[in-house]
């Protein structure tokens, strides 16, 4: 480390970008969010996410198994809220149904995989993507690969502790946060 604060920004950053955590970026405390490596209050993080989604040319949501499968109480409601959010943004949804590597068999038009997410981003020319419902390890693996090889802006709506390797990351993101985000998006688009 050279003493300069490491910035988590859209790439392509290079051949093998480092893990942001190894460059001194720390996960946000409760009530905080991470924006490009810096902790901010959660409401500021929500606003930044809404702005990025509304300003994107081709935003895409990548829902993972934790929200694709109705495996515990509250997940179905969260999935419905996510669909409403994607519709409010005008974004596509490309699922990450599981984590086994599928290269070279993957059809990047219809799914994304954490071990080679860049293929789906390149194929679909995605400029902003949102991870939600992806197990934290696999999200982090994918987020670094995206930062390394693409210019896609990454957002992580995490139900746990958040992600240093995303450009914007919420922690403890639940149903309420999704609804707030939808309201913010509609407000920015002048629909309310």
């Amino acid at each position, binding site marked *: 480390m050279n003493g300069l604060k490491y910035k988590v920004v859209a790439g392509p950053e290079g051949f093998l970008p480092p*893990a942001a*955590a190894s460059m001194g970026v720390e996960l946000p405390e409760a009530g905080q969010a991470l924006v490009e490596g810096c902790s901010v209050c959660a409401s500021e993080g929500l606003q930044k996410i809404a702005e990025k989604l509304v300003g994107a040319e081709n935003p895409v949501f990548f829902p993972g*198994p934790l929200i694709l499968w109705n495996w515990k109480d509250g997940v179905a409601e969260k999935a419905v809220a996510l669909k409403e959010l994607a519709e409010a943004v005008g974004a596509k949804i490309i699922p990450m149904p*599981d984590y086994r590597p599928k290269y070279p068999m993957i059809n990047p038009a219809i799914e994304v995989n954490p071990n080679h997410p860049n293929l789906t981003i390149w194929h679909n020319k995605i400029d902003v993507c949102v991870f939600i419902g992806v197990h934290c*390890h696999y999200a982090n693996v994918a987020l670094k*690969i995206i930062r390394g090889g693409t210019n896609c802006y990454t957002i992580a709506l995490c139900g746990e502790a958040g992600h240093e390797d995303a450009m914007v990351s919420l922690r403890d993101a639940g149903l309420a946060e999704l609804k707030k985000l939808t309201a913010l998006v509609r407000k920015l688009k002048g629909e309310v």
Partner: protein
Amino acid sequence: MIEQKVVTPEYLFFEAERKKQLMTGSEAVREAIRKANVDMAISYPITPQSESMHLVGDIFAEGYVKEYFRGENEFAVMSSVAGAAMAGVRVFTATGGPGTMRAFEVFPTWAGARLPIVCAFMTRGVNSPLTIQPDTIEMAYLLETGMLMLHAETAQDLHDMILKAFIVAEKTDVHVPVGVFADGFFVTHTKETLEIPEPNIKLPSYNPYSSPVPPMDMENVPVRQMRDPFVMKSNFISYAAHASWQQEVDAAAERSRKYLETYLGGLLETENEDADVLLVTSGTAVCQSREAMAIARAQGLSVGLVKLKSIRPFPTEEIRALATRARAIIVPEFNRVGWLAKEIKSVIDEPRKVVGAPRVYGGMTMPPEIILDEIRRVTR
């Protein structure tokens, strides 16, 4: 078995009333596991670890551990605990010396699979001719396996570190194995007075649904397929995924620092840290260094002590800051290769300040006088 109440980790670690008890390090392991709400423990005997896992077997018989069995050998044990952790249960094992070596292939896969296994290593020599005596050389081999490494000075440390290790290991943003190391015989087979909470309380159970990887049901799709290894192909896509995966394991260790600060009170602790000469070490070499420091200070020498509690993650910034002030850094070690001195040299600006001595091995003890010799040498 007495009825146990689930309490918060913070209550068990910091607030619960503690009572004094005289016991060995092996018995301290038993008392830690009694309160750790462990689902499964798997054992294979090797001196000086055998007694501790035997005692864990005793409390399994009493009902404090839900499942317990003996594996075929250490490789089988370490593979079995991996399977248990993948399935989403809290698991404990222990080994030492040649047992560590025999199981070695499995250790890096624990971290790579993000398994929050806690393993106690009762360290001993691994060389030929055969020795069963204390030696910390196996720690040198384990440094880059991705597991967190805590080094106990005393049986009290061993008891407390094992309990805290489960909680740190199971944090969603950490979720890698923790090795708790104790110097064989010196800690495991000697008695000291511990202060420990009553056995009527225990840690909350592990929640596998907050794991950063899905718990695995080995028998059923699609979960089974979710944890398949990468396709072993020679292409950049595969290499990049492997690289990012390994970076994420290192990142997990970085994230553990804040939890170790909270639960251990820091990755290291100091006595007289502004002294001209610092004795920097870990494990039972700390006890001997403390004795040497006391004698040296009584003779008017400016000597301080740095006790390293965490080896992985390594307290890089803390040591760098301490090294700036010190004129010399003496690193006493119970091994031949001086792995700790190398670690310290690698992170400070002036590695020539580091004196990699005294070193004893093969079961030798470390009298404070040989540490004093080094202190006198650097203060001449």
